[in-house]
């Protein structure tokens, strides 16, 4: 249904992109000038601390005049708005939108911590940590949806994997836990694939069922066993510690942010690059995409549609299992009921934001990770906005992104449609 209405909307999207968002930028700039400079005098300064807490390299603090900085940023955003109104950024628009968002948040930070200091590398480091499950989840989503199976079950796969990884890692060691977590994701994905591909059930309903089942079964075992004192040893897995990558971690600012993380972050970088190459440069990727775009044509050419889909969904589950294991053995070192808290869905939003392209989706994941990290960080400062409103930020951004601020993003053409072979 979405696909047919799409062509009618292209006109309105062009209009939307050119006019309304240009105006939005200008409004943003005005808001910044009016609101953020209101209670700042000319000499208030914001100190940006660029030294990472656990890093040995010292970087000088960046001291900015709060008011001037905000005005400069507002002028840049305003100019971008005017350019957009008159000429338009066209295909570069998503990039510009991301930059404007970052500039605006930067201005927001400068305003809210004016008169004191904030550790920027710490903020960015938390951004990377927070974006790990989102990016890995987005990769899982891309793999499944490129093959034509809508996968909203990522949340459930992640939750189950977080549980089994925690329990098995407590009994053995972290590496076995990680392996079992990954396999759990694959097992759940196999159920999803069976329902969607073999039994041709509605993909969204199947995903909802799996999410419900995952919440139920993990909470059941959690309450029955790991919450009781007798079995508390089942939920004490420890977690992977961050380690520095030699050479890379010496880069100022970026080094400690990206290359002083734990194994999950490094696996994530590799995954994004490998998946991007596999989907767009290999024969396997071509087949995968053809099955998702036009299964009939693919079938005619001798590609086994349903087998390709089943394999892609199971692989997607293995990846989601990796992302899920992060929650328990990659960050806090225990399992809590419903600890994924909707991250599987935000990962899907990152996927849509990146137009089903791994590299772009990773950018989307970083954006959401940044939103989470900033809502955490600013909750500590005495900001005019209450912490509960700030906590809404990732969810609000998800809606704005999905609501087509970046234009209507179109998924694979055969997404969610079961394929029936005719030769029977």
């Amino acid at each position, binding site marked *: *249904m*979405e696909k*047919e*209405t*799409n062509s009618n*909307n292209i006109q309105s999207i062009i209009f939307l992109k050119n006019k309304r968002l240009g105006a939005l930028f200008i409004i943003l700039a005005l808001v910044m000038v009016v609101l953020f400079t209101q209670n700042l005098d000319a000499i208030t300064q914001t100190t940006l601390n660029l030294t990472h807490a656990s890093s040995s390299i010292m970087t000088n603090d960046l001291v900015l005049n709060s008011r001037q900085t905000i005005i400069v940023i507002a002028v840049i955003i305003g100019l971008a708005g005017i350019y957009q109104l008159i000429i338009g950024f066209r295909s570069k628009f998503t990039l510009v939108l991301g930059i404007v968002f970052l500039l605006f948040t930067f201005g927001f930070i400068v305003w809210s911590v004016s008169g004191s200091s904030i550790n920027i590398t710490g903020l960015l480091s938390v951004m990377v940590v927070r974006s790990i499950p989102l990016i890995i989840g987005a990769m899982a989503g891309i793999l499944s949806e490129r093959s034509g199976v809508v996968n*909203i079950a990522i949340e459930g796969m992640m939750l189950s994997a977080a549980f089994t990884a925690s329990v098995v890692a407590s009994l053995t060691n972290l590496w076995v836990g990680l392996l079992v977590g990954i396999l759990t994701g694959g097992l759940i994905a196999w159920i999803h694939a069976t*329902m969607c591909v073999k*039994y*041709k*059930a*509605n993909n*969204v*309903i*199947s995903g*909802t*069922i*799996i999410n*419900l*089942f995952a*919440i*139920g*079964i993990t*909470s*059941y*075992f*959690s*309450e*029955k*066993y790991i919450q009781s004192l007798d079995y508390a040893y089942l939920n004490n897995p420890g977690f992977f510690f961050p380690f520095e990558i030699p050479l890379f971690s010496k880069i100022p600012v970026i080094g400690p942010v990206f290359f002083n993380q734990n194994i999950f972050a490094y696996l994530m970088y590799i995954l994004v690059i490998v998946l991007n190459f596999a989907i767009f440069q290999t024969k396997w990727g071509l087949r995968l995409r053809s099955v998702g775009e036009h299964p009939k044509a693919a079938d005619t050419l001798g590609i086994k549609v349903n087998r390709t889909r089943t394999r892609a969904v199971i692989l997607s589950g293995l990846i989601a299992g990796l992302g899920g294991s992060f929650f328990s053995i990659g960050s806090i070192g225990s399992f809590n009921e419903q600890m994924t*808290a*909707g991250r599987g*869905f*935000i990962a*899907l*939003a990152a996927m*849509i934001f990146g137009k089903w392209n791994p590299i772009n989706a990773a950018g989307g994941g970083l954006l959401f990770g940044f939103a989470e990290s900033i809502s955490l960080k600013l909750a500590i400062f005495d900001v005019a906005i*209450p912490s*509960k*409103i700030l*906590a*809404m930020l990732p*969810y*609000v951004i*998800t*809606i704005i992104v*999905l*609501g*087509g601020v970046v234009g*209507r993003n179109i998924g694979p053409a055969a997404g969610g449609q079961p394929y029936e072979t005719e030769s029977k």
Partner: protein
Amino acid sequence: MKKNFSMKSANNAIKIFFEEYSKTSSFYILAAIVLGFLFGAVLIILTTDAVYAGFRNSFWEGIQVSFRTMGKTLESIFVGAFGEPKRIISAFQNGDPQTIRIAINPFFESLTVSTPYIITALALTLAFRSGFLNIGAEGQVFMGGIAAVWVGFSTHSLPSIIHVPLTTFSGMLAGALWGAFPGWLKAKTGAHEVITGIMMNYIAVLFVDYMASGPLRDPAVFTPQTPPISEHAQFFRFFEPPIRFHIGFFIAIAMVPIVNFFLFKTIWGFELRQAGLNPQGAKNAGMNTTKLTIMSLALSGALAGLAGANEIQGISYFMNSLNFTSGYGRNAISLALIGGLQPVGAMIAALFFGFFTSASKFMSLRAGVPHHIIPVMQATIMFFIATPALIRTIFRVKKASSEETLITKVSI
């Protein structure tokens, strides 16, 4: 000889009945329920320590303990849902009204617990029929609740006849607006209502949390919660405490024929169902799909908001994000599907589920079975409903020549 013959014909009759019945959609639902309960039973047996101890002694004892565990669980569910028969009889013989009320409380409590499930299941049925999975019902319940609280406590001078419906309608309005927004987004920008709905759920919970601990906080109480609503805005309760049975139950029951009438006897309902079955066809037939999308999700949201208002006006009277947690929206998805997307079916499923939920606290106390068994069984039941082919394999049933059950046919 004669006896043998009648046995044979009876056997035949059963066989014919089974064959015919297996072609209806209610067969699939019933089979799925049986399989779901079987799965739940196996899970309970597998996670009971006593069973393993029994099997260690002897195989036979293990089997016995398994059955005893199941019997104990079932008994605790029955007692938790309906009350203890012995106690009810002795209470009536005693004649003391307070004792009677305590004895019959479980039954009325189950009805009270079922009420929001009935309403939200109807909300989901309506949305499913028009081709949408209104997963945002959870958030709509919260928004309905907070709106009802706000209208309920901010005035004290209105008479009940105005204040009660005003509070209820404000809850419905809040739910409708919260539901219409994803619908509007879906119609205007194509954003998938499932993902935006889930995001709206998180926002609603945080918003209610913020309101209850910030602007609407009752300064007189230590814990963050809103002030209680005015007595004039509360629903009528039929009995004295501890029975909380209130008029909201009958409102919920009254909604069943209303939704049924709307869906199957009005033009709007017809258009919604057509759009649900075949969106492109509905569009080609000249229906305004934008309007239909927004309308169906707004109406569904209004029902969910009613469930939220019902909880406030009938039971808690104030909003506290810690105790106002529900999962109504989440459960309603499965209830609507188990109800076969029929309003009456949704009501039966919700009543069944409500009694089960009401008993679950007692079940986890007496039989040591965590109440999380319920979502597991729900998911299993839905799993089988969504895969009729699997049920046909298990029960060795031939495929019906007619249409497959509607549940799998709805396009979302």
